[in-house]
């Protein structure tokens, strides 16, 4: 199996307060930690599990800054064989269709059986790139995959639907799968492994190296414009219970009991 796994370096915003620049065009990420996107981490693990079972090799593809090399090395320490990092300011990163074009540009001329991506990114949450990538590469796909079985040039993909239902589809290889979190338990990349992974090939390329015309993937090429970002006002109808922790607990307990809610 020749596998490509696409990963993204994203900020962890789960606990932090988010601030925007005054123009409302960018998020101030100076106080965030960055790491591999959750679902992509599962995609890396799945690609390594597939490689361990069926043989082959895994190439990591990522669009991102130099700082994300550490994430790529970690993926290599887990068993991915080589990597391509695309760094180019000209890419319209707000539009997943442009991102998919760039990824396709890095993959299309190479032989592959499977391309794995995370099903959704923690930051933009569009759940678009992987399926768009499949269409550009001209291969079948399945999204939200939570179990993979491969045999006879086909892949059985278990897609997670709403309500806990799974839809099993059989698609021909080569194919693109977008991987849902929880499909496996991502392993730890020990530092010795990361150090050894320094020997593996990590190619850093830009659009020109990939033979992608700037005008195909830049803000001009994108058919959408990101006009502004803003912090939504949380419109709460909630009664906010105030006080010291103990008082809050006491007030809530009384509301629940007196209101007949418990």
């Amino acid at each position, binding site marked *: 199996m020749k596998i490509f796994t696409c990963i993204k370096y994203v900020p*962890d915003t789960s606990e*932090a307060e988010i601030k925007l620049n005054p123009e409302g065009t960018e998020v101030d990420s*100076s*106080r*965030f*930690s960055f*790491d591999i996107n959750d679902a992509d981490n599962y995609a890396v693990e799945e690609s390594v599990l597939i490689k361990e079972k069926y043989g082959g090799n895994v190439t990591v593809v990522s669009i991102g800054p130099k700082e994300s090399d*550490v994430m790529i090395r*970690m993926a290599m320490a*887990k068993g991915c064989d080589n990597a391509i990092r695309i760094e180019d300011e000209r890419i319209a990163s707000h539009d997943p269709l442009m991102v998919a074009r760039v990824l396709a540009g890095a993959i299309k001329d190479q032989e592959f059986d499977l391309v794995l991506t995370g099903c959704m990114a923690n930051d933009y949450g569009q759940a678009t790139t992987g399926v768009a990538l499949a269409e550009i590469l001209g291969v079948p796909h399945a999204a939200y995959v939570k179990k993979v079985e491969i045999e006879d040039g086909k892949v059985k993909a278990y897609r997670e639907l709403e309500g806990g239902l799974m839809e099993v589809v059989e698609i021909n290889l080569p194919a693109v799968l977008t991987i849902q979190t929880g499909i496996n*338990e*991502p*392993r*730890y*990349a*020990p*530092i*010795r*492994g*990361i*150090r050894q992974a320094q020997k593996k090939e990590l190619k850093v390329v830009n659009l020109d190296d990939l033979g992608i015309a700037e005008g195909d993937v830049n803000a001009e090429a994108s058919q959408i414009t990101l006009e502004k970002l803003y912090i939504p006002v949380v419109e709460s109808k909630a009664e906010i219970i105030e006080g010291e922790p103990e008082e809050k607990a006491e007030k809530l307990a009384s509301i629940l009991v007196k209101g007949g809610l418990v």
Partner: protein
Amino acid sequence: MRGMKMTTENQTFAEKFDLLGCIQCGRCTGGCPVTVRTNLNVRRFVYDAYNEDLLDELSRMAEIWDCTGCHTCAVRCPKGLKPLEVLIGLRSLVVESGKTQPTVRDALESTFMEGNPWEKPRATRGDWMEGLDVKIAQPDQSVENLFFVCCTIAYDPRVKIVAQNMVRLLEKAGVDYAFLGEDESCCGSEVFTLGEDGLFEMIVEDNTELLNEYQAKRIVALSPHCFTTFKTHYPDLNKPVLHYTQLLAELLEQEKLVFKNGLAKKIVFHDPCYLGKQSGVFDEPRRLLKAIEGVELVEFNRARERSLCCEGGGGKMWVESESKIERLAETRIKDARALEADIVAVACPFCVLTLEDAVKALGYEEEMRVAEIMELLGELDGAQDKSNSA
């Protein structure tokens, strides 16, 4: 690599941990505090680990994660061995295979990426300083006391008061000091006991380089874990390391430490394993407590070298035992209750967290409290009285 565990690949497990030096006397298991809760039998592991064929099987046994790194076994070993390091060696096999528990994985990844095991951004390490005018160390300026805060104190809202009160106290006592600020990075204590050798080596190298750069007379660690880790595992550090209780005891002697108020409470001091049995600092914290007017200092039966571990170390913050038997912290708090202590004083952030949990679990919040010594000293200085005892 003086003082450090050798990690050459051609060394066998038995050579690495000097397993043949063991006489199987069993004092390690006999003294091990967690045996009352779990099946861990460290003597048995030292014996079995001699058989290389068994290592894989041994590394898969859940008990290897029960060790709290308290070092009682090492303190008691008549041959000077460190039986617990055999367990850490087995943990290393698991870590190197990548198949760690997710909580351990996340703590280690966070330490690698962000310099702390708590999955907090590196950029917010200095947030505890908000509202305080803290002197930050500069490599080209000499300073007498260079402070090392600790990840837990820097990030955990419950214990950051230790650092905050320290700053206030230093300013008041006119001590020449500086903190590292956001440049500070995990000492690796928990990384070491979780068995991530490679990461620990990297941390030791990086921290040694960082700390050696500063023109400081000495390093003062707020947590006994950082303190002991620096002392034991940083052979190339170019300055001595103190625990803050040692510095304060010194100030006390020089009469630079004056407490405005007294505290009419019965206090029992819990010796943190990393401060007491691992580094021999027993008297300084007691001297500080005794210096407070009105304090009646009492002692646990199991005090000093025999202090009962709170189960906070050894990476246990990220590994839960399956045991349903009473936690050692609860045993400890019951002992304190039997002594009718108002306050269990500690000098370690992990002990605060585990013992306070135990107070809550036992429902003793009305009767007693757990406090870091720095918390108490801050209150004596006119900060709000947090005592909630009668």
